[in-house]
């Protein structure tokens, strides 16, 4: 063994170990980045709040001079003149803002007049942006909560206008859109895929036509998802717009688009599940005088259930991760009120929308990414479990 050969061997082995380490590192780098940037924003509020901040401008009803007593909350600055507590906090972009922590029941801020003379309230969790006074300088956010509290407590100051807003940045709308999308897509794609698979595996003759059908379905796997998006806007959006109350992009069209993307996966997985069912079961059923339809639906299909379950998990994982096709079909407008007849952004598109904003909201995108990855992880475990139980059943029977 020459020295050169030995060194070459060591170098090649080194590259091999190096590559494996790089791959592992890639995973940790991605997970690490997403978690580090998004974890701090993860909260129950995030899942239930609106995305868009609502801004309000209002005036006080009457300047009653009731003095309020401090309810004893540690945080923040108590404005005894109006019975509210405000505190400094940071928003998602890192700027300092003023949050309303507490509002007394009888506080005048609980019954403000907005521009349409309706009564609205300043609620806990909202942000106090600005207070203007007659003949006194305005209280601004950038001076901090302490300064604003001082101004408000000042008996000389008479409030002209109060500007406040909800926090926004919540993903409730997108979360609901995702759930609607999953539900609709599964309702369309699963029956379609399963029945197609049943036909191909149980009823179809072994001829050229069947082979053609199969190969046509297989070619769908090589089509990039953005092309399905084009299909969605040319075919599904107009169809749904004319058949339902939808007008333009809508979630149903999105579900139809996703269904086409999922067809090959569902059909392939279901066919595999059907193929694994032993022929003895089919023969036994037929020998008892059942016809082919009964055999298929009462005997074969039930045995393929765990395979179908696997297909479902795979489908859901694909739905959650899909972005390009849905960007085309659904657009990128984030909605807080979601209806299946209108467009909305599922989680993946929500990330796209935030990332293509100026400036890109990496923090909140990472938080949504954590949610997506967690769901995908759970689904993967689900797939592993269902495959495990499927194998166990096969070895027992």
């Amino acid at each position, binding site marked *: *063994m*020459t020295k*050169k*050969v030995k060194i070459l061997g060591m170098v090649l082995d080194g590259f091999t170990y190096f590559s494996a380490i790089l791959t592992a590192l890639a995973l940790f780098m991605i997970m690490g980045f997403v978690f580090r940037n998004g974890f701090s924003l993860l909260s129950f509020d995030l899942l239930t709040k609106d995305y868009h901040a609502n801004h309000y401008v209002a005036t006080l009803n009457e300047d009653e001079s009731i003095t309020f007593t401090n309810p004893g909350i540690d945080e923040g600055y108590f404005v005894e003149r109006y019975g509210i507590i405000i505190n400094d906090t940071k928003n998602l972009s890192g700027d300092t803002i003023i949050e309303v922590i507490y509002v007394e029941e009888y506080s005048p801020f609980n019954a403000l007049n907005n521009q349409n003379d309706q009564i609205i309230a300043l609620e806990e969790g909202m942000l106090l942006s600005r207070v203007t006074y007659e003949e006194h300088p305005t209280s601004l956010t950038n001076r901090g909560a302490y300064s604003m509290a001082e101004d408000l407590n000042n008996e000389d100051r008479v409030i002209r206008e109060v500007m406040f807003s909800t926090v926004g940045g919540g993903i409730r709308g997108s979360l609901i859109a995702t759930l609607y999308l999953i539900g609709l897509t599964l309702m369309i794609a699963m029956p379609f895929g399963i029945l197609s698979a049943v036909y191909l595996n149980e009823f179809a003759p072994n001829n050229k036509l069947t082979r053609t059908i199969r190969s046509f379905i297989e070619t769908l796997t090589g089509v990039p998802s953005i092309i399905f998006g084009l299909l969605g806007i040319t075919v599904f959006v107009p169809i749904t717009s004319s058949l339902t109350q939808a007008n333009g992009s809508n979630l149903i069209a999105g579900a139809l688009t996703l269904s086409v993307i999922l067809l090959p996966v569902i059909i392939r997985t279901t066919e595999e599940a059907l193929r694994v069912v032993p022929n003895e079961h089919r023969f036994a059923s037929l020998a008892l005088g059942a016809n082919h339809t009964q055999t298929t639906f009462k005997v074969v299909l039930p045995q393929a259930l765990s395979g179908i379950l696997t297909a479902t998990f795979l489908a859901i994982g694909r739905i959650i991760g899909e972005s390009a096709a849905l960007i085309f079909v659904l657009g990128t407008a984030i909605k807080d009120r979601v209806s299946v007849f209108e467009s909305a952004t599922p989680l993946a598109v929500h990330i796209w929308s935030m990332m293509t904003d100026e400036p890109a909201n990496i923090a909140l995108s990472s938080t949504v990414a954590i949610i997506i990855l967690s769901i995908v992880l759970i689904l993967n475990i689900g797939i592993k479990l269902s495959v495990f139980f499927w194998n166990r059943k096969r070895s027992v029977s």
Partner: protein
Amino acid sequence: MDKVFQIDDLNLFYDDFQALKHIDLEIYRNKITALIGPSGCGKSTFIRCLNRMNDLIDGVKMDGCIRFDDEVCNLDGYDVINLRKRVGMVFQKPNPFPMSIFDNIAYGPRRQGVKDKATLKETVIKSLKQAALYDEVKDDLNKSALSLSGGQQQRLCIARALAMEPEVLLMDEPTSALDPIATQKIEALISELKEKYTIVIVTHSMQQAARISDYTAFFYMGELREYDATDKIFKAPKLKQTEDYITGRFG
């Protein structure tokens, strides 16, 4: 007679199962030694000890002594690569690499660092002649090895092993995957090769052992039951068990 291998009290375990029990054996130079016995008796395991191919299997433990060519007991810290250059192996199913005939045979020398084209060509032709394959393939050495017949492929594997110029050639049931005519050709080849090489051959066929070997070792259930000159084993075996096996009463 010159001993090539001296094996003393060799034991081999696959995890908890003992596959070889207290094997004492000598392999003599330039002789053909056949290992016979029923399936699972340990003869393949034994032959793989001689070129340390068992090292590749998980859970294998050995103790005892295998002395190659009067060197020290080589169960620990032995240069395995070097050993395999001097002890070659041919397997049961012909396994040529998916390369040309030339590249197959040149593979071993190339891995040892031989680059000179002329040297390689010389080695390839010489090995092919020794393996009695040259005449059949000399027109196109760049042809794929996989296009040869089963018998030719096995002779190619023999040529491939011979290209390393080993001292010993181990053969693990080399003809069991071949037809009778190919088998005959290879048996004739083996008989010729013993002039230059020491050969140890595992065989399932009693007839083959009787035909070509000088010494025969009968293995049973991991033990070496009888070992003697082939003539004696087949004409006057000492153990009844040996006689029963040879006459086909079991195994």
